[in-house]
């Protein structure tokens, strides 16, 4: 039975899609069977970040409406054979996503994968509440910045009230993933620290993804950063986070770019 995760944040542009792609790939790299679902109807991007944009035939709404069967809509990754994508519809008919429809798709998928990762759209409207609705656990992507932290707090409130688990009185497992973190700025008092964010949100930490050029470089070529450059700081941070999701105990460190530092030293010496 799969564990269903929702990657959510409230605020847009904090790294939900990057995180879904990277964690999905990292889990698949560890041999897990993973499906990532794009819930951003009308603004799909997970296909693009995963480099599968030209292979989309059917989408989530087609499956919900019975136009296509699940195996027809799932796109298998070309590099990782245990990673699958269920894309969002690019047509704007958001209302086509019904609660029962989504419930049925998630139910059907549960038996086929180890992990199902739902990439939530930004905001707190229907798309976002449907993406979290049937999740067993949530990953709240937060930038160390006031508006992102505030929106994360709002999302935590929704996770504790609007999900199926919350309504049944069960505990909703929640994790914070801090992205775009710059430890030197935090140390200088220019950026909220990891501890600040965790104290304010009173939610445990899944990982710290450092600010890095590698993230853009990976999305430019449509490859998750954990595949595109596994030795890079953000890739190592995502690989650590994926291991933590699988229950491994890995000490929390802010990874830095070793290579770049060596490169700089080398250039200086030359």
């Amino acid at each position, binding site marked *: 039975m799969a564990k269903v995760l929702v990657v959510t944040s409230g605020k847009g542009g904090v790294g939900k899609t990057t995180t879904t792609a990277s964690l999905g790939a990292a889990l698949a790299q560890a041999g897990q069977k993973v499906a990532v679902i794009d819930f951003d109807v009308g603004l799909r991007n997970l296909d693009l970040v995963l480099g599968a944009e030209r292979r989309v035939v059917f989408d989530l709404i087609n499956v919900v409406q019975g136009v296509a069967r699940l195996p027809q809509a799932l796109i298998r990754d070309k590099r990782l054979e245990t990673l699958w994508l269920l894309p969002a519809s690019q047509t704007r008919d958001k209302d086509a996503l019904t609660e029962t429809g989504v419930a049925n798709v998630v139910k059907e998928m549960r038996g086929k994968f180890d992990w199902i990762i739902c990439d939530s759209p930004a905001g707190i409207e229907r798309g976002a509440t449907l993406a979290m609705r049937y999740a067993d656990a949530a990953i709240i992507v937060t930038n160390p*910045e*006031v508006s992102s*932290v*505030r929106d994360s*707090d*709002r999302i935590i*409130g929704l996770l*504790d009230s609007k999900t199926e688990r919350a309504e049944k009185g069960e505990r909703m497992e929640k994790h914070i993933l801090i992205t775009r973190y710059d430890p030197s700025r*935090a140390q*200088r*008092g*220019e*950026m*909220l*620290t990891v501890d*600040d964010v965790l*104290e*304010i949100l009173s939610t445990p930490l899944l990982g710290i993804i450092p600010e890095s050029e590698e993230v853009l470089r990976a999305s430019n070529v449509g490859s998750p950063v954990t595949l595109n450059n596994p030795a890079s700081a953000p890739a190592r941070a995502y690989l650590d986070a994926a291991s933590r999701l699988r229950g491994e105990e890995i000490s929390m460190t802010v990874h830095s770019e070793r290579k770049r530092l060596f490169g700089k030293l080398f250039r200086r010496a030359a």
Partner: protein
Amino acid sequence: MIGFNLFRRRGSAPVARERLQILLSHERSARGDSDLLGVLREEMLAVLRKHVPVEQDYVVMRMDRGATLSTLEIEILIPHGMMHAAPPLN
């Protein structure tokens, strides 16, 4: 001025942290989340209102959680002359 600068914490992050703590305690209590600071604040306001007319913003609470010791800082603003005003009837 020198004294002021001496006591000022470095950088803008502490300002961000404090603004968020205040804002979120407001928003959580408005949502009805269980939140110690929010509950304390509302109850404190209710007690104060029995004696002086105070606005929502007049009570500011800050919690600093440390490993061994936590501090709760409560700041209550009372407008000039209000301490002698007749208590509202209820």
